């Protein structure tokens, strides 16, 4: 249908209820209009690596367009070209029918294209006020955007003093203050707590109601089905499919993303043979930081224990304590029935506990090769001045690369790998070393569906080998797919301890809000 007259008049009309996003009329895009953005034959390569081969798609005014693709499909490159971070090699970008080439992010912003990235583009060491000044953002408009999000921000605070989810919302509010024709949200909801992710969805609806457009990149297919009008799937730098996003398009999305590769079946795990009851680790009345008040739970051998919590419930500190990175202010830890104290991560590693942090960048040596990254943790047991046995190392590393299906095209420097492959390297290094308990903090953050499935397969495989895994994920739905049991943290305590049959999203969510016990 064609929107006539002032788009503003649609706000608040019953079939334009952006909060609910349930009305199907709302989802029809006005294809007959001239496209706001049209991309034709866009290509970009970095040296010999082709990132974008031939991308074509268009965004209509008042449309929310999802951009999808596996890691390394070329989404990031496309976004970088659209926002003026890099220039394309070939192809045409048209904005409102006029050919454009953005020379810088500033240039793109002034032309009405404003991006918000997963890593907020705020300068850490200067105040929010000065950050706003830097981008020429009107302070009052920013504050009204922030207050309409239900947040309040002290403009004198340094960006580095603010927690990441809030910072992302600030970045979004800053972009909205410029009232862009085209808002580009690049994985902004990844690892965002549920309430804020919902806020972002409703903001997108409001933006659309004003007749403006959004390009939305997310790996959460539910969000895409909920809010997006159309979706374009990229694979190997080419747009392979564009279709109306409706409920039930998940399979089509996954099929288009994976192409010829086998679609990984649902995680119908056989958990029946889990009869082991031997305890591996016990946590008693752990106290730490501002959030952890009294946390107790046990992890059995060969068990995958899920941890669910809203943002800021102390889950990150819990993982750091178990990994020996931070010290608790109270409580006890037992491994195999023996009380332990970890002063340093090496103590935890010696006790068989390995940590895969949520931020891949902290775990990897970005400039070094896959081999060196994978082999790093092996050097622990080595004599200080001993010779490295490269033959043995190569065999182990190759084994890990193969079992994890790491894409080794860019093996000389880990920083050139895509996010999903980097994550596999962080897990893979512990495969080469061996462990009894793997602490995985949000291992699938910003990772495509195919790689996600591989990582969960891997976690189940560890479990089958009798190894335990403690898994925190910000996507609640994944807990039931991969865990044997889950604990829910709320107000510094374990609010619920649920077997996997009961780990449906609704139960986890209500426990995470402290509703049931």
């Amino acid at each position, binding site marked *: 249908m064609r929107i006539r007259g002032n788009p503003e008049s649609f706000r608040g009309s019953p079939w334009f209820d952006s909060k609910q996003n349930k009305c199907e009329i709302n989802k029809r895009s006005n294809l007959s209009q001239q496209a706001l953005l049209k991309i034709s034959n866009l290509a970009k390569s970095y040296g010999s690596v082709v990132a974008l081969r031939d991308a074509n798609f268009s965004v209509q005014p008042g449309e929310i367009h999802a951009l999808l693709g596996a890691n390394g499909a070329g989404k990031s490159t496309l976004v970088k070209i659209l926002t003026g971070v890099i220039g394309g090699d070939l192809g045409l970008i048209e904005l409102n029918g006029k050919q454009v080439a953005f020379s810088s*992010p500033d240039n793109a912003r002034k032309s009405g294209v404003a991006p918000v*990235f997963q890593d907020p583009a705020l*300068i850490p*060491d200067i105040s929010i006020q000065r950050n706003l000044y*830097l981008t020429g953002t009107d302070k009052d408009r920013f504050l009204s955007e922030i207050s309409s999000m239900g947040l309040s921000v002290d403009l004198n605070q340094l960006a580095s*003093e603010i927690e990441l989810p809030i910072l992302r919302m600030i970045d979004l509010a800053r972009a909205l203050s410029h009232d862009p024709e085209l808002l580009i949200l690049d994985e902004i909801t990844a690892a965002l707590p549920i309430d804020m992710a919902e806020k972002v969805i409703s903001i997108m609806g409001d933006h659309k109601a004003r007749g403006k457009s959004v390009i939305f990149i997310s790996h959460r297919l539910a969000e895409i089905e909920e809010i997006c009008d159309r979706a374009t799937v990229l694979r190997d730098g080419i747009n392979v499919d564009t279709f109306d996003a409706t409920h039930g398009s998940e399979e089509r999305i996954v099929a288009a993303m994976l192409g010829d590769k086998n679609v990984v079946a649902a995680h119908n795990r056989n958990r029946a043979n889990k009869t082991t009851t031997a305890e591996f680790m016990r946590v008693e009345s752990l106290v730490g930081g501002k959030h952890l008040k009294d946390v107790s739970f046990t992890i059995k051998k060969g068990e995958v224990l899920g941890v669910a919590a809203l943002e800021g419930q102390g889950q990150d500190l819990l993982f750091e304590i178990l990994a020996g990175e931070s010290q608790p202010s109270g409580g006890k830890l037992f491994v195999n029935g023996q009380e332990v104290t970890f002063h340093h991560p090496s103590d935890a590693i010696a006790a068989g506990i390995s940590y895969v942090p949520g931020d891949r960048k902290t775990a990897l040596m970005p400039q070094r090769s896959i081999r060196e990254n994978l082999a790093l943790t092996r050097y622990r047991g080595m004599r200080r001045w001993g010779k490295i046995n490269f033959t043995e190392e190569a065999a182990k590393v190759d084994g890990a690369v193969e079992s994890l299906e790491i894409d080794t095209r860019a093996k000389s420097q880990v920083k050139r790998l895509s996010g999903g492959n980097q994550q596999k390297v962080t897990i893979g290094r512990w495969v080469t070393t061996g462990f009894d308990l793997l602490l995985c903090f949000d291992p699938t953050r910003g990772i495509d569906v195919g790689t996600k499935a591989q990582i969960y397969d891997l976690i189940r495989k560890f479990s089958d080998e009798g190894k335990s895994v403690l898994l925190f994920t910000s996507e609640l739905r994944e807990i039931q797919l991969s865990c044997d049991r889950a604990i829910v943290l709320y107000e510094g305590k374990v609010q619920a301890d649920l077997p996997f049959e009961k780990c449906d999203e609704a139960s986890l969510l209500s426990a995470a809000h402290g509703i049931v016990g």
Partner: protein
Amino acid sequence: MNLIKIKRQSWNIGIVIIALGLGTWQINRLPVFGSYEARTILLGILPIALLSMGQAIIIIGGGINLAIGAESVLINCLAARFMAGKSFGIGVALTIALLLLSTCLGAITGLIISRSKIADIIVTLATSFILIGFAMYIQPSPGGGMNLSLAHLVSGKGTAFLPPLITLILPLLIIWIPLYRSRAGIAMYAIGSNKDSAFLSGVNVDLTRIKLYAVGGLFAGLSGIVLTAITLSGSPFASISNTATLNSVAGAVLGGVALSGGVGGLTGPALAALILYFIPTILLNYGIDPAYSQIITGALTIIVVLIGGLIRNRGKKK
């Protein structure tokens, strides 16, 4: 809100307390303390304070300039050579020309770093040799001079302690404060804090780096002019330049500028120069070997930076 502001100033407050403590100690040891002694102290810190401020700007912007001492020495030699025996008017004109020259030298350094993508530390190490070479060519041995009225305007005379005080504070007021409040100044903090975020926020990183080194060069030039006015001669010694460079880094760091970039201001480094001046002077008064005062200055720098770092880390959220 006020609490946040006070906390952010805690480094400067700490530096003021240390400087005041050392100052009182020193003044109490002096038989008399009047405007003459005040002027002596100001003259003692002026060149290094200006140099520390120049270095601080560059470090805030994520760089470091190992040639800042050489820039200052070169301007010192040029000033002493060409101003000797000239009138006040010509002296003023030459001062302006030399300040422009040092600004340009800084800008060229910034341009080389931006274009070549070679690390700041390597480019400026190389330019420091070049600049000292020029200084020695221009003024092969210590000598030269400056119009006395001009020298007195810059550094005062006898008991006139106001001129050097103005020379110290004026650059802060007319260069730094407007710069700090401008978009260009924020951009300098931005590229020092996080280059990628700065670029995404619309900052021209290369141009900002050139401006950064240009302002640093201007402060180095001021330091060179002041040095000429105080000593009424030019000294083309590499050792002077090297010591000055290292002191400028010490002053910047002691003054609360983080070597990682993006943090700090110019008031702290100006005050830190006072501390760097008082320690050796006090120790010398006690008849302690100058070598020990070096050790103590070094140890104090580490301690102050350590304490400051601890306070900062505690304030930061993960």
